[in-house]
């Protein structure tokens, strides 16, 4: 079985098309019965898939496809299914309910791959009067979400009729937004934490980039799911005081700081109660590195350089 990678993804503006539809040209060369079509993160469009089906397609994995012999293809960009990749990302967000409302914690790092490129990214923002939104994942998509929500809240305020969108409504709206984008193979690459208080009712929920959504007393995204959730399951209880809540969040953030490579030691904790929102100024956690194993690093493997 021969596998050939195709160079492709060149955008060609088809001049004869009055609407200037953009086309992707994929040079597809096949030896034998299997061909890999790739490049630019593009998936196959429907006509290719149709052709593939008629030629006994095996399966599609990630951005590649296994196809029998196919000739030069010209695909319309707007028919191309794209699942992009994130570029500048934020790491975990943790949220908990406490006695008076909601606490959400997130660090201020924006990683560019494995580089910690930005260290003052605010990843928690208030939404309207009643909600807080924290996001991990692609920062530019988070900014896009904030723009959408800004418009939503604006129209809500313009009614000026005493009714306001509460955290439940915002959470549901976000779920619809994320799910619909996912269905178009063009997701907003974020995991969101949405918390709020309205009329004494506390609300805390999360939405992932594929539209998975649920509410709970404590939620976390990314690495927080693996490192922070177990701590929260053991130590969260109803009616935490503000101090206990912050202490719990700091405990989780400290574990993340030690163990998540994309965490930075500069975090914000946001509080939301019936009275309003407060986002703390950035601060750092105290860490302890005085472990014996760190003291003499070359003890186990002496080297000359």
């Amino acid at each position, binding site marked *: 079985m021969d596998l050939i990678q195709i160079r492709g993804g060149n955008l060609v503006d088809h001049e004869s098309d009055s609407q200037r539809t953009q086309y992707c040209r994929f040079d597809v060369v096949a030896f034998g019965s299997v061909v890999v079509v790739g490049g630019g993160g593009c998936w196959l469009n429907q006509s290719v898939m149709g052709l593939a089906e008629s030629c006994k397609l095996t399966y599609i994995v990630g951005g590649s496809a296994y196809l029998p012999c196919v000739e030069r293809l010209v695909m319309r960009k707007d028919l191309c299914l794209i699942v992009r990749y994130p570029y500048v990302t934020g790491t975990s967000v943790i949220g908990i309910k406490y006695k008076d409302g909601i606490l959400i914690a997130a660090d201020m790092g924006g990683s560019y791959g494995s580089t910690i490129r930005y260290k003052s990214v605010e990843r928690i923002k208030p939404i309207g009067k009643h909600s807080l939104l924290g996001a991990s994942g692609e920062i530019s998509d988070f900014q896009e979400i904030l723009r959408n929500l800004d418009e939503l809240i604006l129209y809500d305020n313009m*009614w000026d009729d*005493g*009714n306001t*969108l509460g955290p*439940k*409504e915002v959470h*549901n*709206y976000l779920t*619809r937004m994320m799910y619909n984008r996912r269905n178009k193979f063009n997701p907003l690459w974020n995991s969101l934490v949405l918390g709020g208080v309205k009329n004494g009712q506390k609300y805390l929920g999360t939405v992932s980039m594929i539209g998975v959504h649920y509410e709970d007393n404590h939620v976390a995204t990314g690495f927080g799911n693996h490192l922070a959730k177990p701590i929260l399951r053991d130590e969260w209880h109803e009616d935490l005081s503000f101090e206990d809540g912050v202490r719990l969040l700091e405990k989780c953030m400290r574990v993340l700081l030690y163990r998540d490579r994309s965490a930075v030691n500069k975090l914000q904790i946001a509080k939301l109660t019936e009275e309003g929102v407060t986002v703390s100024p950035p601060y750092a956690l105290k860490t302890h590195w005085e472990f014996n194993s760190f003291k003499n690093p070359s003890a186990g493997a002496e080297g000359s350089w």
Partner: protein
Amino acid sequence: MFRNQYDTDVTTWSPAGRLFQVEYAMEAVKQGSAAIGLRSKTHVVLGCVNKAQSELSSHQKKIFKVDDHIGVAIAGLTADGRVLSKYMRNECINYGFGYEGKLPVGRLVVQLADKAQVCTQRSWKRPYGVGLLVGGLDESGAHLYYNCPSGNYFEYQAFAIGSRSQAAKTYLERKFETFTDASKDELIRHAIFAIKETLQGEKLTSSTCTIAVLGVGEPFHILNQQAIEELIKSFEIAEEEPAADEPDAAPEVEQPAAGDQAAPPADEGAAPMEI
């Protein structure tokens, strides 16, 4: 109301600054059989007089559930009313899907009014010939609105529309100050009496009227005939109380045949615009 050269289409103003087509549409509302609505802080009650085309047919449906927290009673062209109820139901469902909350009735009413306004400013459309009494709940409590074919909407403590609604309005005007803090049962009682006023001598039975209730913790529902029959009976026994207020309590005595045939032939949808 008289025919004149400015009433041919809705996009023609009269020199006096009137849109006659819109006013004629509001006449259609006045020709329909009565619908009333009243509200307290926590409940809304809608009621209507059941009009049947003939003795053989069933009566027109004039009260519609729009959502658990919104209901509407109509008077006028019931077909237009049905179509608008479908629009309202759609809006509530879409809001529920996108926001998982209840569409505030105040916003629905504005959307409805804007929809009606469009029909007053397009030469290829005509105004909706139906008046809607929209009762619903939102964050600030129970509300009752009246939507007009002109595209206006007003909020009311209590209101009545349709034929002989003035009698009901007179009764409601006398009593409305007690409505805000009234209990649900008191509201229903006032609703039944208001409907009785519009019947003006005809027998009030559970088959001639429909009552619907919605409130805090109580989704919209239409009271069943038996419940209404019992309420009517209990009010007839306690006739002394209302008799003190209403000087015309005497004609409660049966005048079945005379009363029914005396009903105006202007049934919803049956009477054209001609005057």
